[in-house]
């Protein structure tokens, strides 16, 4: 993060923020921020049946920088531009008067993250369960890209299968790629950040975040869901390319061939060879394969009654069914 002001030690994050949000539990720690479950005392005062929300604040080493609050605001602003059932809902942005610490509140997501689901399915998810998750995730990302928002840190831990459905979250490394959103503060190239196993080769080489980099990351996540393991194990894209791991990639069992063609293209190390898009991958997952699904499986995923639903509604039904199946089995 660029800063001309020398960092000073910030006050520790208080247990009560903005005289309104009381920290109950630390939910997650990232490279730049931490997410807490908090009790919203205002909601509680008005007997809201769901008084708990999520709260994100920057970690101390970032909070120490002069423009930390602006950086967190950029994440809030980017998330606010997105209106999609599979993207987390932001609520508000504040600066705690006592500590000077910025924080944002968000929808509280209760349920396993995809890293847990992957761990629970060491041989990969079967296609009927995988397909609705993939469609939900890809449609969320396609929506973000359509809105001019790049994510920048797609990985299983940033996707939760909540009781309300799949949610993509943490746009902390995101950036606006079109229009006024591009003027929001963001991490400079000098202080680039990524999760090594999900960062596209060009990001590791210091290039700007692009939709193609998000595509590579989401393809890694989808491959991992389908097979139970990361396409290149613990290697970064650079290490895997040097070891020519791309040539040995195996189609995960159960993925229809047309879907695999798109997914494999999305996993290309060279961005110029990544000649597909999130929208094309989404379309491939939506269609599956007429020959790839046994008839019994196709019938199982038809809507219970009425005419064939529009694709989004159909996806929602599949996602609901997959979630129910997952929670029954866990």
């Amino acid at each position: 993060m660029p800063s001309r002001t020398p960092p000073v030690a910030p006050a520790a994050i208080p247990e009560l923020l903005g005289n309104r949000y009381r920290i109950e539990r630390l939910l997650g720690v990232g490279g730049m921020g931490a997410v807490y479950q908090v009790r919203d005392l205002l909601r509680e005062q008005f007997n809201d049946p769901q008084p708990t929300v999520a709260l994100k604040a920057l970690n101390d080493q970032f909070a120490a920088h002069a423009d930390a609050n602006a950086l967190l605001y950029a994440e809030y602003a980017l998330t606010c531009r997105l209106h999609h059932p599979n993207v987390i809902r932001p609520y508000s942005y504040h600066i705690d008067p006592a500590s000077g610490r910025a924080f944002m509140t968000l929808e509280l997501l209760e349920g396993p993250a995809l890293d847990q689901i992957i761990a629970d399915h060491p041989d990969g998810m079967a296609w009927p369960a995988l397909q609705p998750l993939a469609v939900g995730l890809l449609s969320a990302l396609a929506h973000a890209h359509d809105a001019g928002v790049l994510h920048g840190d797609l990985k299983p831990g940033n996707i939760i299968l909540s009781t309300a459905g799949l949610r993509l979250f943490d746009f902390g490394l995101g950036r606006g790629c079109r229009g006024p959103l591009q003027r929001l503060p963001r991490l400079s190239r000098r202080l680039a950040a990524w999760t090594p196993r999900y960062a596209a080769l060009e990001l590791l080489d210091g290039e700007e975040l692009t939709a193609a980099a998000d595509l590579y990351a989401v393809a890694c996540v989808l491959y991992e869901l389908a097979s139970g393991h990361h396409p290149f194990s613990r290697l970064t894209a650079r290490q895997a390319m040097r070891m020519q791991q791309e040539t040995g990639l195996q189609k995960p069992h159960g993925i229809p061939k047309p879907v695999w063609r798109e997914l494999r293209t999305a996993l290309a190390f060279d961005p110029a060879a990544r000649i597909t898009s999130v929208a094309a991958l989404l379309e491939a997952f939506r269609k599956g394969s007429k020959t790839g699904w046994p008839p019994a499986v196709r019938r199982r995923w038809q809507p219970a009654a009425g005419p064939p639903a529009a694709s989004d509604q159909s996806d929602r039904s599949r996602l609901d069914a997959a979630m129910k199946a997952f929670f029954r089995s866990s």
Partner: protein
Amino acid sequence: MNWSSCSQTDPGNQRRHNEDAILALQDSGLWAVADGMGGHRNGALASRLIIDTLGALELTGNIDQNQRRVRQALQQVNRRLTQDMTQVQGQPAGPVGSTVVILLATANRALCLWAGDSRCYLWRQQTLHQLTRDHSLLQQLIDRGAVTGTAAASHPGAHVLTRAVGAHDHLKLDSVAFMTQPGDTLLLCSDGLHRELSPAQLSSVLEHQDSSSGAAQLVSLALRGPARDNLSAVVVKISAGAS
């Protein structure tokens, strides 16, 4: 069996921040101490994440099922602190992690899980037993017979941990299971406490403590010394009766 427990944590005499975190869930039969490490107070986040994650688990099964849930939860925390952690170029890439020692108890069985140098002691029939074995270079040196305990303690890297949550891509937890007896007292503590107090001092407090003040007494005793590190103690006393 009945359990009663008490817990206490303190930054110590020389540190401003406390990177230890403790858990005492008597009704669930779950107690834990975590000692965080990492710059910029990130160690405090790591230890808190472990404790808050453990505290949110629904441990309604038998001790083996509960152990599996605890292990799964810690593996997930470990994965997020290691291979799935966002890395920021230009920021110190030092480890962010934490030791952990956990005690799970049911009617007459108990299980201790740990990684790192936070310890579990059992006080039984006037004898202090150290149930855990530190995952540290110091312990390795002693195990190899290369040095005596005294000489090893002065080794410059003696206190380097060989295991911790967040230290390696795959977390290895050690465990010890045992049958409990009425009158047993268990102590979970961070290294700040067990380095400050001798086994004789620990025994003296555990022998005479009542069920509500043992942890505070131990921390208070340790604070009379230099107490350079954070101090944490969780004391669990087991008595006869329906649990």
